[in-house]
Protein backbone atom coordinates (compact mmCIF):
# COMPACT_ATOMS: atom_id res chain seq x y z
CA UNK A 1 0.00 0.00 0.00
CA UNK A 2 1.40 3.42 -0.93
CA UNK A 3 1.63 6.29 1.53
CA UNK A 4 -1.13 8.07 -0.38
CA UNK A 5 -3.38 5.04 0.08
CA UNK A 6 -2.49 4.80 3.76
CA UNK A 7 -3.32 8.45 4.27
CA UNK A 8 -6.60 8.15 2.34
CA UNK A 9 -7.69 5.21 4.53
CA UNK A 10 -6.67 7.06 7.68
CA UNK A 11 -8.60 10.22 6.77
CA UNK A 12 -11.71 8.26 5.78
CA UNK A 13 -11.47 6.24 8.99
CA UNK A 14 -10.82 9.22 11.25
CA UNK A 15 -13.54 11.51 9.95
CA UNK A 16 -15.96 8.71 8.91
CA UNK A 17 -16.07 9.91 5.31
CA UNK A 18 -17.68 8.33 2.29
CA UNK A 19 -14.77 7.24 0.06
CA UNK A 20 -16.10 9.56 -2.64
CA UNK A 21 -15.66 12.55 -0.32
CA UNK A 22 -11.91 12.08 -0.10
CA UNK A 23 -9.41 14.02 -2.17
CA UNK A 24 -6.05 15.65 -1.61
CA UNK A 25 -7.84 18.99 -1.85
CA UNK A 26 -10.29 18.10 0.92
CA UNK A 27 -10.41 21.01 3.36
CA UNK A 28 -11.19 21.13 7.06
CA UNK A 29 -14.11 23.53 6.63
CA UNK A 30 -15.84 21.03 4.34
CA UNK A 31 -15.75 18.17 6.83
CA UNK A 32 -18.22 18.40 9.72
CA UNK A 33 -16.27 15.85 11.77
CA UNK A 34 -12.91 17.66 11.44
CA UNK A 35 -13.33 19.20 14.87
CA UNK A 36 -10.91 19.55 17.80
CA UNK A 37 -11.25 15.91 18.86
CA UNK A 38 -10.99 14.94 15.20
CA UNK A 39 -7.63 16.70 15.01
CA UNK A 40 -6.39 14.74 18.03
CA UNK A 41 -7.66 11.52 16.49
CA UNK A 42 -6.03 12.30 13.15
CA UNK A 43 -2.71 13.13 14.86
CA UNK A 44 -2.78 9.81 16.73
CA UNK A 45 -3.54 8.04 13.46
CA UNK A 46 -0.67 9.76 11.65
CA UNK A 47 1.69 8.66 14.41
CA UNK A 48 0.43 5.07 14.25
CA UNK A 49 0.62 4.99 10.45
CA UNK A 50 3.67 7.09 9.61
CA UNK A 51 5.54 7.23 12.91
CA UNK A 52 5.53 11.03 13.08
CA UNK A 53 4.10 13.12 15.96
CA UNK A 54 2.62 16.43 14.83
CA UNK A 55 3.52 19.31 17.10
CA UNK A 56 0.41 21.01 18.58
CA UNK A 57 0.92 23.98 16.24
CA UNK A 58 1.24 21.72 13.20
CA UNK A 59 -1.89 19.76 14.13
CA UNK A 60 -4.10 22.78 14.68
CA UNK A 61 -2.68 24.59 11.65
CA UNK A 62 -3.63 21.84 9.21
CA UNK A 63 -6.37 23.09 6.89
CA UNK A 64 -6.41 20.34 4.26
CA UNK A 65 -5.20 16.87 3.38
CA UNK A 66 -2.57 18.52 1.20
CA UNK A 67 -1.20 20.23 4.33
CA UNK A 68 -0.74 16.83 5.99
CA UNK A 69 1.16 15.56 2.95
CA UNK A 70 3.33 18.71 2.93
CA UNK A 71 4.26 18.34 6.62
CA UNK A 72 5.00 14.63 6.33
CA UNK A 73 7.10 15.15 3.20
CA UNK A 74 9.09 17.81 5.05
CA UNK A 75 9.89 15.10 7.62
CA UNK A 76 11.20 12.75 4.95
CA UNK A 77 8.05 10.69 4.43
CA UNK A 78 7.68 10.43 0.69
CA UNK A 79 4.38 10.65 -1.17
CA UNK A 80 6.08 10.73 -4.54
CA UNK A 81 4.94 7.23 -5.44
CA UNK A 82 1.28 8.12 -5.83
Amino acid at each position, binding site marked *: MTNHEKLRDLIIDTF*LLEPSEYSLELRRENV*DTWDSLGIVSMAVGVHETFGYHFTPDEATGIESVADIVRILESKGISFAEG
Partner: protein
Amino acid sequence: MVRILEETPGDPTAIDRAWEEPETFCVLPAKGDVSAQWVRAQWELLPERFERDHFALLTSGSTGAPKLVVGERCRAEALARLLHEVQDSECVAEAILTLPLSYCYSFVNQWLWARVVGRRLVPTLGFTDPARLAHTLEAARDGMLCLVGAQLALFEEHLPGRTFPGIVRLHFAGGPFPQARLERLAERFPNASVFNNYGCAEAMPRLTLRRAEEADEPLDVGRPLPGVELRRGEGGALEFRSPFGAVALVEEGRGRVLDPEEWIPTGDHGDAVQGGSWRLAGRKGDVFKRFGEKISLARIRESVAGAFDGEVQTYREVDRMGEEGFSLLLSPTPSDEDVRAVLLALRRKHPRTHWPLRVESVERLPRLPNGKVALGELETLEGKTLHWKNRI
Protein backbone atom coordinates in the same frame (compact mmCIF):
# COMPACT_ATOMS: atom_id res chain seq x y z
CA MET B 1 -41.58 -21.92 53.34
CA VAL B 2 -41.93 -21.50 49.63
CA ARG B 3 -42.64 -24.37 47.30
CA ILE B 4 -40.06 -24.75 44.53
CA LEU B 5 -41.27 -25.62 41.05
CA GLU B 6 -38.45 -26.62 38.80
CA GLU B 7 -39.39 -25.49 35.35
CA THR B 8 -40.07 -28.21 32.81
CA PRO B 9 -39.71 -26.62 29.37
CA GLY B 10 -42.71 -27.23 27.17
CA ASP B 11 -44.85 -28.52 30.03
CA PRO B 12 -46.65 -26.00 32.23
CA THR B 13 -48.93 -28.51 34.02
CA ALA B 14 -47.02 -28.25 37.32
CA ILE B 15 -47.58 -24.50 37.31
CA ASP B 16 -51.26 -25.00 36.46
CA ARG B 17 -51.64 -27.21 39.51
CA ALA B 18 -49.62 -24.96 41.80
CA TRP B 19 -51.78 -21.94 40.96
CA GLU B 20 -54.81 -23.84 42.22
CA GLU B 21 -53.19 -24.45 45.61
CA PRO B 22 -52.85 -21.62 48.15
CA GLU B 23 -49.20 -22.33 48.92
CA THR B 24 -46.82 -19.77 47.44
CA PHE B 25 -44.43 -21.17 44.87
CA CYS B 26 -41.32 -20.06 43.03
CA VAL B 27 -40.58 -21.12 39.47
CA LEU B 28 -36.94 -22.11 39.23
CA PRO B 29 -35.44 -21.74 35.72
CA ALA B 30 -34.52 -24.98 33.99
CA LYS B 31 -31.24 -23.41 32.95
CA GLY B 32 -29.36 -21.24 35.38
CA ASP B 33 -27.17 -21.38 38.41
CA VAL B 34 -29.77 -20.59 41.10
CA SER B 35 -30.52 -23.51 43.40
CA ALA B 36 -33.68 -24.36 45.32
CA GLN B 37 -31.61 -24.07 48.48
CA TRP B 38 -30.66 -20.49 47.61
CA VAL B 39 -34.29 -19.56 46.96
CA ARG B 40 -35.40 -21.06 50.27
CA ALA B 41 -32.70 -19.13 52.10
CA GLN B 42 -33.80 -15.87 50.44
CA TRP B 43 -37.40 -16.60 51.28
CA GLU B 44 -36.55 -16.60 55.00
CA LEU B 45 -35.85 -12.87 54.64
CA LEU B 46 -39.53 -12.12 53.96
CA PRO B 47 -42.52 -12.00 56.34
CA GLU B 48 -44.61 -15.16 56.74
CA ARG B 49 -47.70 -13.57 55.24
CA PHE B 50 -46.33 -14.11 51.74
CA GLU B 51 -46.44 -17.89 52.16
CA ARG B 52 -49.94 -18.12 50.73
CA ASP B 53 -51.62 -16.75 47.60
CA HIS B 54 -48.43 -15.36 46.12
CA PHE B 55 -45.86 -16.51 43.59
CA ALA B 56 -42.20 -15.74 43.13
CA LEU B 57 -39.97 -15.42 40.09
CA LEU B 58 -36.30 -14.75 39.60
CA THR B 59 -34.74 -11.91 37.70
CA SER B 60 -31.33 -10.24 37.48
CA GLY B 61 -30.59 -7.33 39.78
CA SER B 62 -28.60 -4.26 38.80
CA THR B 63 -25.35 -6.09 39.56
CA GLY B 64 -26.38 -9.16 37.58
CA ALA B 65 -26.94 -11.13 40.78
CA PRO B 66 -30.25 -13.01 41.05
CA LYS B 67 -33.19 -11.22 42.62
CA LEU B 68 -36.35 -12.83 43.94
CA VAL B 69 -39.51 -10.94 43.03
CA VAL B 70 -42.82 -11.76 44.74
CA GLY B 71 -46.19 -11.16 43.13
CA GLU B 72 -49.69 -11.45 44.52
CA ARG B 73 -51.91 -13.76 42.51
CA CYS B 74 -55.03 -11.60 42.62
CA ARG B 75 -53.03 -8.58 41.37
CA ALA B 76 -51.50 -10.55 38.54
CA GLU B 77 -54.90 -11.91 37.51
CA ALA B 78 -56.32 -8.38 37.55
CA LEU B 79 -53.49 -7.28 35.25
CA ALA B 80 -54.20 -10.13 32.84
CA ARG B 81 -57.90 -9.14 32.69
CA LEU B 82 -56.92 -5.52 32.08
CA LEU B 83 -54.49 -6.47 29.31
CA HIS B 84 -57.16 -8.53 27.64
CA GLU B 85 -59.46 -5.53 27.59
CA VAL B 86 -57.05 -2.78 26.57
CA GLN B 87 -55.21 -4.85 23.97
CA ASP B 88 -58.38 -5.74 22.14
CA SER B 89 -57.58 -9.43 22.47
CA GLU B 90 -60.98 -11.11 22.28
CA CYS B 91 -60.07 -12.52 18.87
CA VAL B 92 -57.07 -14.44 20.21
CA ALA B 93 -57.83 -18.14 20.57
CA GLU B 94 -54.45 -19.49 21.61
CA ALA B 95 -51.15 -18.40 23.11
CA ILE B 96 -48.02 -20.04 21.77
CA LEU B 97 -45.19 -20.23 24.27
CA THR B 98 -41.65 -19.76 23.03
CA LEU B 99 -40.15 -18.27 26.19
CA PRO B 100 -39.51 -20.04 29.49
CA LEU B 101 -42.26 -19.57 32.07
CA SER B 102 -39.73 -18.72 34.75
CA TYR B 103 -39.43 -15.40 32.92
CA CYS B 104 -41.91 -12.90 34.35
CA TYR B 105 -43.06 -11.54 30.99
CA SER B 106 -43.79 -15.02 29.69
CA PHE B 107 -45.40 -16.14 32.95
CA VAL B 108 -47.92 -13.31 33.23
CA ASN B 109 -48.26 -12.09 29.66
CA GLN B 110 -48.79 -15.57 28.24
CA TRP B 111 -49.42 -18.33 30.76
CA LEU B 112 -51.53 -16.38 33.27
CA TRP B 113 -53.33 -14.29 30.67
CA ALA B 114 -54.31 -17.49 28.85
CA ARG B 115 -55.49 -19.08 32.09
CA VAL B 116 -57.56 -16.07 33.20
CA VAL B 117 -59.46 -15.75 29.91
CA GLY B 118 -59.67 -19.46 29.14
CA ARG B 119 -57.39 -19.23 26.13
CA ARG B 120 -55.69 -22.37 24.82
CA LEU B 121 -52.00 -22.52 25.70
CA VAL B 122 -49.65 -24.17 23.23
CA PRO B 123 -46.24 -24.87 24.82
CA THR B 124 -43.20 -25.29 22.57
CA LEU B 125 -39.50 -25.73 23.15
CA GLY B 126 -38.89 -22.51 21.22
CA PHE B 127 -35.73 -22.47 19.17
CA THR B 128 -34.42 -25.55 20.95
CA ASP B 129 -36.54 -27.38 18.38
CA PRO B 130 -37.02 -24.94 15.47
CA ALA B 131 -38.71 -27.44 13.15
CA ARG B 132 -41.39 -28.18 15.71
CA LEU B 133 -41.79 -24.50 16.47
CA ALA B 134 -42.30 -23.77 12.77
CA HIS B 135 -44.90 -26.52 12.56
CA THR B 136 -46.74 -25.12 15.60
CA LEU B 137 -46.67 -21.59 14.25
CA GLU B 138 -47.87 -22.71 10.83
CA ALA B 139 -50.73 -24.62 12.43
CA ALA B 140 -51.72 -21.68 14.65
CA ARG B 141 -55.22 -20.26 14.35
CA ASP B 142 -55.75 -16.79 15.80
CA GLY B 143 -52.59 -17.17 17.83
CA MET B 144 -50.69 -14.81 20.07
CA LEU B 145 -46.94 -14.86 20.38
CA CYS B 146 -44.75 -13.09 22.93
CA LEU B 147 -41.16 -12.57 21.85
CA VAL B 148 -38.08 -10.70 22.93
CA GLY B 149 -36.54 -8.72 20.07
CA ALA B 150 -33.40 -10.83 20.14
CA GLN B 151 -35.40 -13.86 18.96
CA LEU B 152 -35.94 -12.27 15.56
CA ALA B 153 -32.36 -13.13 14.65
CA LEU B 154 -33.22 -16.76 15.48
CA PHE B 155 -36.20 -16.65 13.13
CA GLU B 156 -33.87 -15.42 10.38
CA GLU B 157 -31.32 -18.10 11.14
CA HIS B 158 -33.59 -21.10 11.65
CA LEU B 159 -36.77 -20.30 9.77
CA PRO B 160 -35.79 -18.10 6.79
CA GLY B 161 -38.65 -17.28 4.47
CA ARG B 162 -41.33 -19.02 6.57
CA THR B 163 -44.57 -17.11 7.11
CA PHE B 164 -47.13 -17.53 9.88
CA PRO B 165 -50.50 -16.08 8.92
CA GLY B 166 -52.21 -17.76 11.90
CA ILE B 167 -50.55 -15.38 14.36
CA VAL B 168 -52.79 -12.38 14.95
CA ARG B 169 -51.02 -10.79 17.93
CA LEU B 170 -47.29 -10.29 18.28
CA HIS B 171 -45.96 -8.85 21.54
CA PHE B 172 -42.44 -7.67 22.30
CA ALA B 173 -40.74 -6.95 25.60
CA GLY B 174 -37.43 -7.55 27.31
CA GLY B 175 -35.34 -5.28 25.10
CA PRO B 176 -35.53 -2.67 22.39
CA PHE B 177 -38.70 -2.79 20.31
CA PRO B 178 -37.74 -3.95 16.78
CA GLN B 179 -39.04 -0.84 15.01
CA ALA B 180 -36.55 -1.18 12.16
CA ARG B 181 -37.85 -4.68 11.39
CA LEU B 182 -41.56 -3.99 11.22
CA GLU B 183 -41.74 -4.43 7.46
CA ARG B 184 -40.02 -7.78 7.68
CA LEU B 185 -42.28 -8.77 10.58
CA ALA B 186 -45.30 -7.93 8.45
CA GLU B 187 -44.03 -10.33 5.79
CA ARG B 188 -43.48 -13.14 8.29
CA PHE B 189 -46.63 -12.50 10.33
CA PRO B 190 -48.93 -10.93 7.74
CA ASN B 191 -52.05 -10.88 9.94
CA ALA B 192 -50.48 -9.87 13.24
CA SER B 193 -51.06 -6.68 15.15
CA VAL B 194 -47.74 -5.82 16.79
CA PHE B 195 -47.42 -4.40 20.31
CA ASN B 196 -44.60 -3.04 22.42
CA ASN B 197 -45.16 -4.43 25.94
CA TYR B 198 -42.78 -2.44 28.11
CA GLY B 199 -42.32 -3.30 31.77
CA CYS B 200 -39.97 -4.96 34.23
CA ALA B 201 -40.03 -7.85 36.69
CA GLU B 202 -40.90 -5.55 39.60
CA ALA B 203 -43.97 -4.41 37.63
CA MET B 204 -45.01 -8.09 37.25
CA PRO B 205 -44.37 -7.30 34.36
CA ARG B 206 -46.31 -4.69 32.40
CA LEU B 207 -46.36 -0.92 32.66
CA THR B 208 -47.32 0.49 29.28
CA LEU B 209 -48.98 -0.31 26.02
CA ARG B 210 -48.05 0.77 22.54
CA ARG B 211 -49.26 -0.48 19.22
CA ALA B 212 -46.41 -0.56 16.71
CA GLU B 213 -48.06 2.00 14.46
CA GLU B 214 -48.50 4.56 17.24
CA ALA B 215 -44.88 5.76 17.12
CA ASP B 216 -41.86 5.74 14.84
CA GLU B 217 -39.20 5.28 17.47
CA PRO B 218 -38.25 1.98 19.12
CA LEU B 219 -37.66 3.70 22.44
CA ASP B 220 -41.23 5.00 22.61
CA VAL B 221 -42.93 2.61 25.01
CA GLY B 222 -46.37 4.17 24.76
CA ARG B 223 -48.77 5.24 27.47
CA PRO B 224 -49.06 3.77 30.98
CA LEU B 225 -51.74 1.12 31.45
CA PRO B 226 -54.85 2.31 33.32
CA GLY B 227 -53.97 2.57 37.01
CA VAL B 228 -50.22 2.64 36.39
CA GLU B 229 -48.24 5.82 37.05
CA LEU B 230 -44.82 6.69 35.66
CA ARG B 231 -42.52 9.52 36.61
CA ARG B 232 -39.04 10.78 35.90
CA GLY B 233 -37.16 10.37 39.16
CA GLU B 234 -33.79 11.55 40.34
CA GLY B 235 -31.18 11.70 37.60
CA GLY B 236 -33.74 10.76 34.95
CA ALA B 237 -34.52 7.32 36.39
CA LEU B 238 -37.89 6.04 35.21
CA GLU B 239 -40.04 5.02 38.20
CA PHE B 240 -43.50 3.53 38.54
CA ARG B 241 -46.38 2.85 40.89
CA SER B 242 -48.72 0.07 39.89
CA PRO B 243 -51.64 -1.74 41.51
CA PHE B 244 -50.41 -4.86 39.67
CA GLY B 245 -46.75 -4.71 40.62
CA ALA B 246 -44.63 -6.95 42.84
CA VAL B 247 -45.31 -6.81 46.57
CA ALA B 248 -41.88 -7.83 47.85
CA LEU B 249 -38.41 -8.65 46.70
CA VAL B 250 -35.15 -10.06 47.97
CA GLU B 251 -32.00 -8.58 46.53
CA GLU B 252 -28.38 -8.84 47.66
CA GLY B 253 -29.33 -10.60 50.87
CA ARG B 254 -32.00 -8.11 51.87
CA GLY B 255 -35.75 -8.75 51.90
CA ARG B 256 -38.02 -5.79 51.24
CA VAL B 257 -41.79 -5.39 51.36
CA LEU B 258 -42.86 -2.84 48.77
CA ASP B 259 -45.07 -0.02 49.99
CA PRO B 260 -48.06 0.59 47.64
CA GLU B 261 -47.20 4.30 47.66
CA GLU B 262 -43.56 3.72 46.87
CA TRP B 263 -42.11 4.75 43.53
CA ILE B 264 -40.15 1.79 42.20
CA PRO B 265 -37.26 2.20 39.73
CA THR B 266 -37.76 0.35 36.44
CA GLY B 267 -34.00 0.15 35.92
CA ASP B 268 -34.35 2.39 32.86
CA HIS B 269 -34.05 6.09 32.27
CA GLY B 270 -36.87 7.84 30.45
CA ASP B 271 -38.91 10.95 29.80
CA ALA B 272 -42.52 11.81 29.09
CA VAL B 273 -43.20 12.79 25.50
CA GLN B 274 -46.17 14.36 23.79
CA GLY B 275 -49.51 12.65 24.06
CA GLY B 276 -48.85 10.93 27.37
CA SER B 277 -46.31 8.45 26.01
CA TRP B 278 -42.91 7.74 27.52
CA ARG B 279 -39.58 7.42 25.79
CA LEU B 280 -36.70 5.39 27.18
CA ALA B 281 -33.20 6.82 27.33
CA GLY B 282 -31.67 3.44 28.11
CA ARG B 283 -30.84 1.25 31.05
CA LYS B 284 -29.43 2.65 34.23
CA GLY B 285 -25.76 2.89 33.28
CA ASP B 286 -26.66 3.46 29.64
CA VAL B 287 -26.61 7.19 30.22
CA PHE B 288 -23.29 8.77 31.13
CA LYS B 289 -21.01 11.64 30.23
CA ARG B 290 -18.05 11.45 27.87
CA PHE B 291 -15.90 14.56 27.44
CA GLY B 292 -18.64 16.41 29.33
CA GLU B 293 -21.39 15.43 26.89
CA LYS B 294 -24.27 13.20 27.94
CA ILE B 295 -24.49 9.95 25.99
CA SER B 296 -27.49 7.64 25.81
CA LEU B 297 -26.40 4.22 24.60
CA ALA B 298 -30.02 3.40 23.82
CA ARG B 299 -30.13 6.31 21.36
CA ILE B 300 -26.88 5.17 19.78
CA ARG B 301 -28.11 1.58 19.42
CA GLU B 302 -31.27 2.97 17.86
CA SER B 303 -29.26 4.97 15.30
CA VAL B 304 -27.11 1.98 14.41
CA ALA B 305 -30.07 -0.39 14.20
CA GLY B 306 -31.40 1.79 11.38
CA ALA B 307 -28.23 1.07 9.37
CA PHE B 308 -27.50 -2.56 10.23
CA ASP B 309 -29.94 -5.40 9.77
CA GLY B 310 -28.65 -7.48 12.67
CA GLU B 311 -28.36 -7.18 16.42
CA VAL B 312 -26.71 -4.15 17.97
CA GLN B 313 -25.31 -4.23 21.51
CA THR B 314 -23.04 -1.99 23.55
CA TYR B 315 -20.87 -2.44 26.58
CA ARG B 316 -19.19 0.16 28.75
CA GLU B 317 -15.42 0.66 28.80
CA VAL B 318 -12.91 3.29 29.83
CA ASP B 319 -10.60 4.71 27.15
CA ARG B 320 -6.85 5.04 27.46
CA MET B 321 -7.23 8.55 28.90
CA GLY B 322 -9.49 7.26 31.68
CA GLU B 323 -12.63 8.73 30.11
CA GLU B 324 -15.88 6.71 30.18
CA GLY B 325 -16.73 5.18 26.82
CA PHE B 326 -18.31 2.15 25.19
CA SER B 327 -17.84 -0.36 22.43
CA LEU B 328 -20.39 -1.32 19.84
CA LEU B 329 -20.89 -5.03 19.18
CA LEU B 330 -22.72 -6.20 16.05
CA SER B 331 -24.03 -9.65 15.26
CA PRO B 332 -23.84 -11.49 12.95
CA THR B 333 -20.53 -10.49 11.35
CA PRO B 334 -21.23 -7.49 9.09
CA SER B 335 -19.97 -6.97 5.55
CA ASP B 336 -17.57 -4.06 4.86
CA GLU B 337 -20.54 -2.25 3.37
CA ASP B 338 -22.55 -2.78 6.58
CA VAL B 339 -19.69 -1.39 8.67
CA ARG B 340 -19.45 1.65 6.42
CA ALA B 341 -23.22 2.20 6.78
CA VAL B 342 -22.94 1.95 10.58
CA LEU B 343 -20.08 4.45 10.70
CA LEU B 344 -21.91 6.87 8.43
CA ALA B 345 -25.00 6.60 10.64
CA LEU B 346 -22.85 7.50 13.65
CA ARG B 347 -21.39 10.47 11.79
CA ARG B 348 -24.78 11.72 10.61
CA LYS B 349 -26.60 11.39 13.92
CA HIS B 350 -24.03 11.81 16.67
CA PRO B 351 -21.11 14.06 17.57
CA ARG B 352 -17.69 12.46 17.84
CA THR B 353 -17.98 12.27 21.63
CA HIS B 354 -20.82 9.75 21.12
CA TRP B 355 -18.83 7.48 18.85
CA PRO B 356 -17.78 4.10 20.24
CA LEU B 357 -14.24 3.20 21.22
CA ARG B 358 -14.49 0.24 18.87
CA VAL B 359 -16.90 -1.37 16.44
CA GLU B 360 -16.68 -5.12 16.81
CA SER B 361 -18.72 -8.13 15.81
CA VAL B 362 -19.40 -11.72 16.70
CA GLU B 363 -21.27 -14.28 14.67
CA ARG B 364 -23.55 -15.11 17.62
CA LEU B 365 -24.26 -13.24 20.80
CA PRO B 366 -24.29 -15.12 24.12
CA ARG B 367 -27.81 -15.59 25.47
CA LEU B 368 -29.61 -16.12 28.75
CA PRO B 369 -32.17 -18.92 29.06
CA ASN B 370 -35.00 -16.43 28.42
CA GLY B 371 -33.56 -15.51 25.04
CA LYS B 372 -32.20 -12.14 26.09
CA VAL B 373 -28.58 -11.29 25.33
CA ALA B 374 -26.18 -12.06 28.21
CA LEU B 375 -24.98 -8.47 28.51
CA GLY B 376 -22.55 -9.25 31.31
CA GLU B 377 -20.53 -11.47 28.98
CA LEU B 378 -20.09 -9.04 26.10
CA GLU B 379 -16.92 -7.33 27.27
CA THR B 380 -14.94 -10.53 27.81
CA LEU B 381 -16.42 -12.46 24.92
CA GLU B 382 -13.81 -14.32 22.88
CA GLY B 383 -13.57 -14.34 19.10
CA LYS B 384 -14.67 -10.76 18.48
CA THR B 385 -13.67 -9.18 15.15
CA LEU B 386 -12.49 -5.57 15.25
CA HIS B 387 -13.86 -3.44 12.38
CA TRP B 388 -13.06 0.09 13.52
CA LYS B 389 -11.37 1.79 16.42
CA ASN B 390 -11.60 5.28 17.78
CA ARG B 391 -8.20 6.89 18.29
CA ILE B 392 -9.21 9.14 21.15
